[in-house]
């Protein structure tokens, strides 16, 4: 669906307003039901036993004592989840991650699970399960795992993307390369070169709601799953495949979701809960503890990135080179590949090369986190760009404007850009009052750009018009932060009715066609596209019904502002029929009125943002305080501007946390030391200032209203913006994130 140029000048009536979200009341009164807020009659409590070892062969599991404990109804191990993945390597990894098969691959890896009549019996049962481990050497650091003599995590991993193919296994599952031109020749010509190595530590999405589900497998093989997820259709596919069920027999209902940010795009406990329920013959509720969430789910890659950029005296970047090593947990991944694609995407470069290495480590399987892999690459590149601007003698913003990609630029990852928003965000930042505000002692200002692809994907929507003329909108993309409001606005806009007449719900997997999950900033982008299409289909029906009521040809009926309007000289005097009137008559004009839409919402359009950060550093302790923060980002068209601002602010806050304090800390024993919110320090309210936002609207040519995804890009610039601010405040280039006080103090003293 292409952008309708009418909309550039059109004044929207619903889209762009800021009504209260339909699910809001339930959320402020405590009535909204999240993953753990659902119960079933006869429900058991499920609990998972996890490996305390980073790397160990599982010699033997004896569950007999646990099984004999009164109140225990089922115990499962990998033996209860046989391999049904038929050679699908990615699914096999998911299966192995849900329940360790031959080896425990990280501290927190599931090895067995129980279902019991209550939580205390389940906890007791876990203690009775005997697991005999044979410890193996482990490696948790990305650089150590990359080294040739590192302990081998998976002896079947042969690096792909290398010619000739290596003859022995390593911890590097893939090498990938992007770029164009002649980097070495370009670099040789450069007047100024910056070359540095950067490191970022592993973070977690940190959603406040732990993973939770209720699984109910009936003796006839049908099943229900209530779960907090970003994609219930995807969970259905995965669970059905892993358990050998027909997808249609597994009905998955997505609960309200208490945050996901990419971390609820993967199954972990759900197949285990289903296996327990199948074995026990009763519903099983499985809720992770916070400790389990940190030890077993989610984390991002830890990275180590070499960057080299050369510029000419006039400020033109002549060559750019980066080597990126990303940890992907104990399984093959493609995280460095994404980092390699995004690293230089903001710039117009004649000679560019990026090489990514996927590195296996004894840490939890890496999962997506908001624009996955892009923030780390942006940190390295935008830090080097800032330093290079200084060497050239140019202002950091001007230097970026001079080198910014534009329409027609060949992107560093390959294709040529269409209309894009990096230039406008930089111009907006250049003119922003924030850039001109004075700074005090020990204070620094940093800015940085960020890029993210954005995705669309498979989307299905039903729009049903009731006999009273109100509209039920059933969508299949989980609402992670206000999309039911946005999609109701879009339906109201297209039909020409009030927002209050539309109610959007998230349908379960048995009530709607397949939907990809809410990821890749696609929720509002794709479902609004499908909603528009469904509404247009409904309008066709409404016109036909009005034609019947008037007894005139349907070609003579137009749809304007929520009304059927008769056109033509012969019946132009007929009074308009409202949607409500047509709906009321629907019983006798052919029955229910609805519009359906099944689409692939491709063409999401790439997204850019530029952020500004002011920070104060205490030079005696390395303590930092963010004083002011501004986000400028292109939204294409902001459907519900308040929630667009919310996405900008939330991404910025997560990025600030990542930049300053959040990190996984492993001991020498390979165990995670800070699996809780006390020592995994996400920002608290008093850590942050207000976060100013500026929404730019450069229409996406592939969406009828010009909408772009807005969810993810806001986490890309902050690591670099904060690092540049700290570096400017202390006069030392920061190369290791998070910039925790001990790291800042150490940098100051070298």
């Amino acid at each position: 669906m292409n952008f309708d140029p009418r909309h550039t000048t059109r004044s929207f009536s619903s889209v762009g307003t800021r009504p209260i979200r339909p699910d809001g009341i339930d959320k402020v009164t405590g009535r909204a039901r999240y993953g753990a807020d659902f119960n079933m009659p006869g429900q058991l409590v499920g609990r998972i036993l996890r490996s305390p070892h980073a790397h160990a062969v599982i010699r033997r599991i004896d569950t007999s004592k646990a099984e004999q404990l009164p109140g225990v109804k089922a115990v499962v191990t990998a033996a209860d989840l046989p391999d049904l993945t038929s050679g699908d390597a990615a699914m096999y990894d998911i299966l192995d991650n849900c329940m360790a098969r031959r080896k425990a691959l990280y501290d927190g890896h599931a090895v067995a699970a129980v279902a019991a009549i209550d939580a205390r019996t389940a906890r007791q049962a876990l203690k009775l399960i005997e697991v005999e481990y044979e410890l193996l050497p482990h490696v948790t650091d990305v650089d150590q795992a990359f080294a040739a003599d590192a302990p081998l995590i998976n002896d079947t991993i042969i690096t792909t993307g290398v010619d000739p193919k290596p003859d022995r296994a390593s911890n590097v599952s893939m090498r990938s390369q992007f770029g164009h031109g002649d980097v070495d020749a370009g670099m040789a010509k450069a007047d100024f070169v910056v070359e540095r190595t950067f490191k970022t530590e592993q973070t977690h999405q940190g959603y406040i709601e732990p993973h939770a589900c209720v699984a109910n497998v009936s003796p006839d093989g049908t099943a229900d799953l209530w779960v907090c997820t970003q994609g219930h259709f995807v969970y259905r596919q995965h669970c059905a495949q892993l358990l050998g069920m027909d997808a249609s027999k597994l009905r998955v209902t997505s609960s309200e979701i208490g945050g996901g940010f990419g971390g609820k795009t993967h199954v972990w406990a759900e197949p285990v809960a289903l296996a327990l329920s199948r074995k026990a013959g009763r519903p099983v509720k499985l809720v992770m503890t916070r400790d389990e969430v940190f030890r077993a789910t989610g984390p991002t890659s830890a990275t180590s990135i070499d960057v080299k950029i050369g510029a000419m005296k006039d400020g033109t970047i002549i060559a750019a080179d980066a080597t990126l090593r990303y940890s992907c947990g104990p399984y093959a991944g493609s995280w460095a590949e994404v980092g390699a694609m995004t690293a230089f995407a903001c710039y117009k470069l004649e000679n560019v090369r990026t090489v990514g290495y996927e590195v296996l480590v004894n840490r939890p399987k890496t999962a997506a986190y908001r624009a996955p892999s892009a923030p780390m690459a942006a940190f390295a590149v935008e830090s080097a760009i800032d330093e290079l601007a200084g060497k050239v003698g140019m202002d950091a913003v001007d230097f970026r404007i001079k080198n910014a990609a534009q329409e027609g630029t060949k992107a560093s990852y390959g294709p040529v850009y269409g209309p894009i928003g990096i230039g406008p965000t930089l111009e907006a930042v250049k003119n922003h009052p924030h850039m001109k505000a004075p700074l005090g002692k020990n204070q620094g200002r940093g800015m940085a750009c960020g890029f993210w692809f954005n995705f669309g994907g498979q989307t299905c929507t039903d729009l049903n018009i009731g006999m009273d003329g109100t509209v039920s909108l059933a969508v299949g993309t989980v609402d992670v932060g206000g999309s039911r409001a946005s999609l109701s606005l879009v339906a109201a806009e297209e039909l020409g009715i009030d927002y209050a007449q539309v109610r959007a719900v998230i349908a379960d997997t048995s009530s709607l066609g397949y939907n990809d999950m809410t990821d890749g900033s696609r929720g509002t982008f794709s479902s609004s596209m499908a909603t528009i299409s469904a509404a247009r289909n409904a309008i066709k029906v409404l016109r036909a019904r009005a034609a019947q009521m008037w007894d005139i040809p349907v070609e003579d009926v137009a749809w304007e502002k929520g009304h059927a309007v008769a056109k033509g000289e012969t019946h132009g005097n007929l009074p308009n029929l409202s949607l409500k009137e047509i709906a009321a008559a629907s019983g006798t004009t052919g029955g229910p009125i609805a519009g359906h839409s099944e689409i692939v919402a491709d063409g999401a359009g790439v997204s850019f943002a530029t952020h500004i950060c002011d920070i104060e550093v205490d030079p005696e302790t390395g303590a930092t305080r963010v004083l002011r923060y501004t986000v400028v980002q292109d939204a294409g068209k902001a459907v519900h501007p308040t929630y667009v601002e919310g996405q900008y602010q939330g991404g910025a806050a997560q990025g600030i946390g990542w930049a300053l304090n959040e990190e996984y800390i492993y001991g020498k024993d390979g165990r995670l030391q800070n699996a809780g919110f006390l020592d995994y320090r996400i920002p608290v309210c008093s850590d942050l200032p207000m976060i100013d936002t500026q929404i730019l609207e450069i229409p996406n040519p592939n969406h009828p209203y010009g909408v772009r995804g807005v969810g993810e890009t806001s986490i890309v610039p902050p690591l670099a913006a904060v690092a540049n601010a700290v570096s400017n405040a202390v006069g030392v280039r920061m190369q290791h994130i998070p910039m925790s006080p001990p790291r800042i103090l150490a940098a100051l003293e070298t």
Partner: protein
Amino acid sequence: MAGIAVSTTINGDHAEFLCHPDETLLEVLRERLGLMGVKEGCGTGDCGACSIVLDDRLVCSCLVLGAEAEGRRIATVEGMAQGDRLHPLQQKFLEHAALQCGICTPGFLIAAQDLLAKNPDPTEEEIRFGLAGNLCRCTGYDKIVRAVQDAASVMRGA
């Protein structure tokens, strides 16, 4: 393991329950009394999602035993609205979009209510420090702080 009989007042109503000695008040409220508005984010007092007011003190219900509730007054998010009239904080949270996923919202509302009861006209800094025991991962806190400021001014005027 004998059940302990506890008699208490929840959101103004008398309530009785039996609980185990090691059962937390959070577990009692959610699992025995069905007050699912009280959320569990960590179980260790680090996130504030299970905040309640216990005899005029803001506490994490995960750090209180059910047995300790004997003879005490408990206020949860379920008691904030009066009939169909939302509390000004609830109304302002909606208007300012001070929630995205909403899992932290009940805890924030209770904490903010407690804050405003003790300090009806707080500065931005007092709000930020007053709510520092409640984690939100979605909003960056900006809209939450604005909603509390706005609600405070409505409540002072009322």
